[in-house]
């Protein structure tokens, strides 16, 4: 990958974990812990788009929320531009909120239905900047134009918009304070295919224009492939493989990535199906994950060592990392 010796990562997570306890028993022995995010280490470099993929329950959304400290982390470190923010209080985080924003899957859930879009978009300015009413209106109009809506839309309420337009509003709000980093959690998965493509294009344009860094979380591999420069694949709370997008998708080294990749139905009939790898069984419960390599129960290449020893995420060169005892040839 692009080793950037002189740059430092915009965001760095070290052994980041998020544990939830489940079961409200007063007896500690009956309480159980879910490792939603299990010792994840990640560097996010300025200007890149890191795609995080995985199936439901793999912890990708929790990881995204931890990265911007919307969810408290249980252990591990988190640095923004070299500054430790893992223990920062909400008050200390406030200036950082300008730099890190989030876009959610369901924009209607994050837009107050009783407030006009103009007011919703002006909130960031009210909280972080002192602007006159007319300056604020100008900035809101500019934001709306930037996401291909019209300044007249400011006086409407969220329900008057279609799903795609609401997502544009969600993006406009994230964009308001010109953040460095946007974590987008399934930003297009609730949208129709034709609208999805519009939003993906918009995100790519904005990235260019404002020099944004994205963490793009999605279960849809083709969308992630389109927008990401680098991808990380998660399984049961951990990253099993990461590296430059084209390489990881063209030649996956982790057997889970390979299975995920081959499970995606391709809208073409010309490509003969290369022997598809259909995984047996379901995702194990994160409450009771398998021993050793978390994937060994479904892995076609598992051997005894996979049951007993957990593989570490290790570099295999060219910016690629894989956590597997028997990596695929790729």
């Amino acid at each position, binding site marked *: 990958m692009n080793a950037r010796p002189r740059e430092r990562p915009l965001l760095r997570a070290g052994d980041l974990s998020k544990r939830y306890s489940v079961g409200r028993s007063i007896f500690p022995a009956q309480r159980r812990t879910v490792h939603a995010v299990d010792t994840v280490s990640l560097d996010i470099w300025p200007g890149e788009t890191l795609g995080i993929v995985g*199936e*439901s329950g793999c912890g990708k959304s929790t990881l995204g929320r931890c990265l911007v400290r919307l969810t408290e982390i249980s252990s591990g470190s988190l640095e923004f531009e070299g500054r430790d923010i893992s223990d920062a209080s909400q008050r200390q985080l406030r200036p950082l909120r300008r730099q890190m924003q989030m876009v959610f899957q369901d924009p209607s859930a994050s837009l107050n239905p009783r407030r006009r879009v103009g007011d919703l978009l002006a909130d960031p300015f009210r909280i972080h900047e002192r602007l006159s009413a007319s300056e604020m209106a100008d900035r809101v109009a500019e934001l709306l134009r930037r996401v291909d809506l019209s300044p007249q839309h400011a006086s409407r309420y969220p329900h008057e918009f*279609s799903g*795609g*337009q609401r997502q544009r509003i969600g993006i406009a709000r994230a964009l308001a304070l010109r953040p460095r980093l946007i974590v987008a959690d399934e930003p297009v998965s609730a949208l*129709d*295919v*034709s*609208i*999805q*493509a*519009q939003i*993906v*294009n918009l995100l*790519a344009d904005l990235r260019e224009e404002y020099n944004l860094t994205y963490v793009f979380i999605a*279960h849809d*591999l*083709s*969308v992630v*492939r*389109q927008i990401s420069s680098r991808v990380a694949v998660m399984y049961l709370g951990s990253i099993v493989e990461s590296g430059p997008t*084209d390489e990881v*998708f*063209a030649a996956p080294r982790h057997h889970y990535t390979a*299975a*995920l*990749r*081959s*499970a*995606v*139905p*391709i*809208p*073409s*009939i*010309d*490509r003969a199906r290369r022997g*598809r790898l*259909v*995984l047996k*069984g*379901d*995702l194990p419960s994160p409450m009771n994950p398998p021993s050793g390599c978390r994937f060994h129960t479904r892995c076609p290449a598992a051997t005894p060592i996979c049951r007993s020893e957990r593989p570490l995420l290790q570099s295999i060169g060219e910016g690629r990392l894989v956590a597997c005892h028997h990596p695929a040839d790729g």
Partner: protein
Amino acid sequence: MSADAPLLVVKDLAVSFRSDEGLVRAVGGVSFSVEQREIVGVVGESGSGKSQTLLAIMGLIDSPNAIVSGSIRFMGQELIGLKRRALDAIRGRQIAMIFQDPMSALTPVHTIGNQIGEQVRAHEKVSAKAVRARAVQLLDAVGIANPDRVIDSYPHQLSGGMRQRAVIAMALSCNPALLVADEPTTALDVTVQAQILELIGRLRDQFGSAVILVTHDLGVVAEVADRVLVMYGGRFVEEGGKSSVFRAPLHPYTWGLFGSIPPMEGPRPARLAAIPGIPPSLSNLPKGCAFSPRCAFRHDACLVQLPIMQGESHRAACLLPEPTRRQFAAQRPGGVVEMQR
């Protein structure tokens, strides 16, 4: 009925709803047929009318404000206007339906075995022991491991993929001639989706069922369907054999759909060839071609004249002359045409 007659023939099926905003026309007169053992994929986005078409076939549109017209003939018998009792003899037994959310078809308070058994008993008179044996056999057939244990589980104890399998087992309990599936894999993860699609393909081979599969995902269609129907604004805009539609799609909307999907292989385009604009509101459909406001190829006639399906086995509803469209489609591999105006 002769052996090679179509299983299902739908003619001019229209579904409208009376609402405060006037008449909402969800399905605007669609005609198609399904052959025995055929898998037909119906593709469309939300509001295209694809789900309402399925519900109409199942006789499940019972709102007092709904108006269903046209003809739906199943094995030679007209279903529209059929009495509830007569319909019930067909539904579940000869036509079964599965939904996107398996929980909508399962009750949380009964075991999986009871629910499959209920389905069997509703249509056949068999002993309790035979019912149980049949349920185990069905769960096994849909690829559930340990069926004799799962049969005594409640839906909440199963994963999403297992639930969808259980629902498919229920649907198969009476060997239906036609399985109607509305986005059956949309709520599932891709690895589980792959399993369910494989299962649907196997159904036809093992049980001889025909399948109507409604989906928004062209990849799913490429995977399992024999024939493709593309829906937009309550009407079909394109219909044809899978290979023909995927190799040389004939409707600008189909081009737009293909262009909207990011490729999984090869070079990544700098921008996706997205379709501009949004799908039309069904209560306020544009005059003429419903796709015209978003179409890069529209001309004056498109705004006033409603295109009808034209062609032989591969048909499309577009006012542009077919040779012109074939030319456009050939400009880019896969028939993808840039939709930016």
